């Protein structure tokens, strides 16, 4: 194959924002090349530079051996299928397709011959007289392709042309486009953010990210040997975990050593390890190289997609004291008032300025009159000090209806996992059976009542608590003390399987050396 297009160090920025950071890329003759990346990665900009609609700030574009930087779009042997088709609304299908030929001043008979050939290539025979605004999205798409191809360009640029179509039509057009490309035998440069589209149609995929090329390769290469975690995540579902190379063919991850087939990495190098969800085999726990618990199962049609946790996260167990509240009656006014005892963390007392309102909400203090209308609590008095101990707090209304409850000030107790940099904390709490029965989302409420939180030890960023474990039935709750365990997510693998399993099942995961893909860590930008 002959080199047709060469991008040399293309740099482009808009309003000071660099969109292309020196892109180098070769495109061969008769290739179906896909520029793949999320929106804003620069793929459309690169396409527009090739089309001549944008001028690069630096670098050169070589087309067929000649520099085309100064060639205006209408003199380039390149045609484009635009994202929103850009069909001329004042012309019918025939005239839209004939546009380029009329510009070239070809004879009417030749034009008619060529246009009709195009109409049949895109399966729109008999549509010539139709108004383009009356066509469906898929038909407009075909007209746009015919209008570009009729000029017999050496390269056809397609800027996310399938984006506006629905799923079924999209699949159909994918096949159509591939067929048309094979039939006319010219270079197609296709821009998309849809990885499946890229895998289906391309001879070569160029994965782009933030103005740079991450990897160039055939669909198979990109899928099986992604250059880094970014590419792996973009192409297909993946599990990517940190690992360390022990020798050239042994890698350590998830606390186990595994054989792998990679000879590029140095021993001791920290790497990203990729295992595709479909490469796992579900086996009995004792036969698995990794063992875990099924956390969730989603039915996906042909297979089930499940999350398997092989290592639990950080957890903290607290006591929930369920006590019936004793309302205080004020016989003189008919008012009633209630509040719970509560625990408070001495560090919170020190760091957060706890207001009366905060205490009211922690104690769930409330007052109401004979008709059950809420009354506001106007005074709060307490002797709480920032030292562990038992204190008391009194809540009261304007009419001197009062209740006093106990406040337990305790030292904070964290559970820390230094190895994975996660800390978790939660406090014991008092609650009434009514509040538990009335809870709409018990796990979320338990987190709130226990002030449960987890965070990253390095940067203090919050970490979500994914598991709340308890063994009571909220509808049947009685007085007593209960254990509640809060936990963060551990190591979870996404697994695709046809085996029917349920959340909570213990399973073993098995995979071979070929299923482990080792990738170099992406260089972090500073």
């Amino acid at each position, binding site marked *: 194959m002959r080199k047709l297009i060469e991008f040399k160090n293309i740099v482009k920025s808009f309003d000071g924002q660099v969109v292309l950071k020196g892109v180098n890329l070769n495109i061969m003759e008769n290739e179906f090349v896909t520029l793949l990346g999320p929106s804003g990665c620069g793929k459309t900009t690169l396409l527009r530079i090739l*089309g001549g609609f944008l001028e690069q700030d630096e670098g050169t574009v070589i087309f067929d051996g000649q520099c085309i930087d100064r060639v205006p779009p209408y003199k380039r042997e390149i045609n*484009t299928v635009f*994202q*929103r088709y*850009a069909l001329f609304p*004042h012309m019918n299908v025939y005239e839209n397709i004939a*546009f380029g030929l009329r*510009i070239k001043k070809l004879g009417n008979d030749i034009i008619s011959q060529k246009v009709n050939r195009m109409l049949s290539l895109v399966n729109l025979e008999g549509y010539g007289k139709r108004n383009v605004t009356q066509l469906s999205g898929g038909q407009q798409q075909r007209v746009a392709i015919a209008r570009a191809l009729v000029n017999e360009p050496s390269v056809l640029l397609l800027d996310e042309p399938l984006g506006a179509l629905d799923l079924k039509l999209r699949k159909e057009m994918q096949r159509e486009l591939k067929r048309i490309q094979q039939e006319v035998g010219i270079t197609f440069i296709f821009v998309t953010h849809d990885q499946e589209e890229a895998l289906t149609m391309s001879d070569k995929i160029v994965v782009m990210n933030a103005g740079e090329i991450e990897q160039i390769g055939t669909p198979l290469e990109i899928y099986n040997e992604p250059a880094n975690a970014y590419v792996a995540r973009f192409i297909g579902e993946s599990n990517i975990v940190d690992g360390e190379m022990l020798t050239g063919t042994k890698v350590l991850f998830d606390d186990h050593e595994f054989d792998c087939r990679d000879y590029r990495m140095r021993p001791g190098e920290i790497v990203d390890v990729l295992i595709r969800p479909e490469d796992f085999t579900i086996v009995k726990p004792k036969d698995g190289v990794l063992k875990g618990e099924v956390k969730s199962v989603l039915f996906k049609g042909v297979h089930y997609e499940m999350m398997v946790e092989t290592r639990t996260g950080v957890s903290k167990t607290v006591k929930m004291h369920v006590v019936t509240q004793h309302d205080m009656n004020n016989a003189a006014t008919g008012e009633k008032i209630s509040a719970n005892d509560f625990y408070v963390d001495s560090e919170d007392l020190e760091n957060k300025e706890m207001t009366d309102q905060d205490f009211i909400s922690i104690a769930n203090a409330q007052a109401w009159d004979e008709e059950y209308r809420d009354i506001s609590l106007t005074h709060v008095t307490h002797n709480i000090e920032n030292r562990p101990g038992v204190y008391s707090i009194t809540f009261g209304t304007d009419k001197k209806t009062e209740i006093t409850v106990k406040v337990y000030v305790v030292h904070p107790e964290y559970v820390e996992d230094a190895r994975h940099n996660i800390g978790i904390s939660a406090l014991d709490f008092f609650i009434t059976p009514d509040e538990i029965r009335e809870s709409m989302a018990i796990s979320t409420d338990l987190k709130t009542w226990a002030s449960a939180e987890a965070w990253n030890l390095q940067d203090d960023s919050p970490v979500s608590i994914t598991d709340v474990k308890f063994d009571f039935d909220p509808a049947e709750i009685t007085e007593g003390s209960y254990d509640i365990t809060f936990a963060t997510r551990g190591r979870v693998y996404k697994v695709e399987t046809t085996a029917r399993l349920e959340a909570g099942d213990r399973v073993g995961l098995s995979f071979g050396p070929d299923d482990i893909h080792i990738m170099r860590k992406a260089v972090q930008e500073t």
Partner: protein
Amino acid sequence: MKSFFRMTYPYILWIAVFIVAPMIMILLYALTKDGGNRTLIFRFTFENFTRFFSDPTFMRVLFTSLRIAFLTTVFCILIGYPAALFIANLSERAQTMMVLLLTLPMWINMLLKTYAWRGILMNFDNLESEVKVFIGMVYDFLPYMIIQIHTSIAKMDRELLTAAYDLGANRWKTFLKVTLPLSVPGIISGITLVFLPAVSSFVIPKLLGGGDYVLIGNLIETFFVTTGDWNFGSAISLVMALIIIASMWLTRKIDRNAKED
């Protein structure tokens, strides 16, 4: 549905009293003859029309009116189109600003503007009356044309121009084959907004043309106000109305044919 119709009654009444009734009266006046002393004799006659069409002076006035309105419209397109194109290529903010500036003179009473022109044109004695009237009309009606054309260009999808370049058309060809055809609706409504008031204008010719320059509008005014011959005035109005309707029908037809080709 019934209650909806009931809601339209006030409008129907309005149209009947203020539009249909006066039209019928004009038609009635045009087809009858004054009996003298403001009495109306119900004797149908085409005399008013034959008088108008047989008098070379009146025909000359009609011809002059159509000519100056036509010239005004053509000039408004010639000046207005490039201006509209220029504005449409500015940034969104600049466009809003330019449209505002263009409409600014419209806020001032037309009489006032015409008097101002009279003051300016007084210094150019050697100019013919028709040229002065022409200048006044173009000045007055140009913003309507620019705004109409600008609107139709501005709402056009810019990607169409890119597509035309892509398909081998240079800037000039792109303009001819894409921008111009797509702005025809704007030109048509511009023509409507310029030709109509221009052909029936009477303030501008009266103030800028001097006493000797008479257009059809002035003629109608004279017969209604000065001579008091409402019958003949009505007949001229009716002829004018028919000419305008015919010309509008013609432009729309041309527009439609252009689209079908």
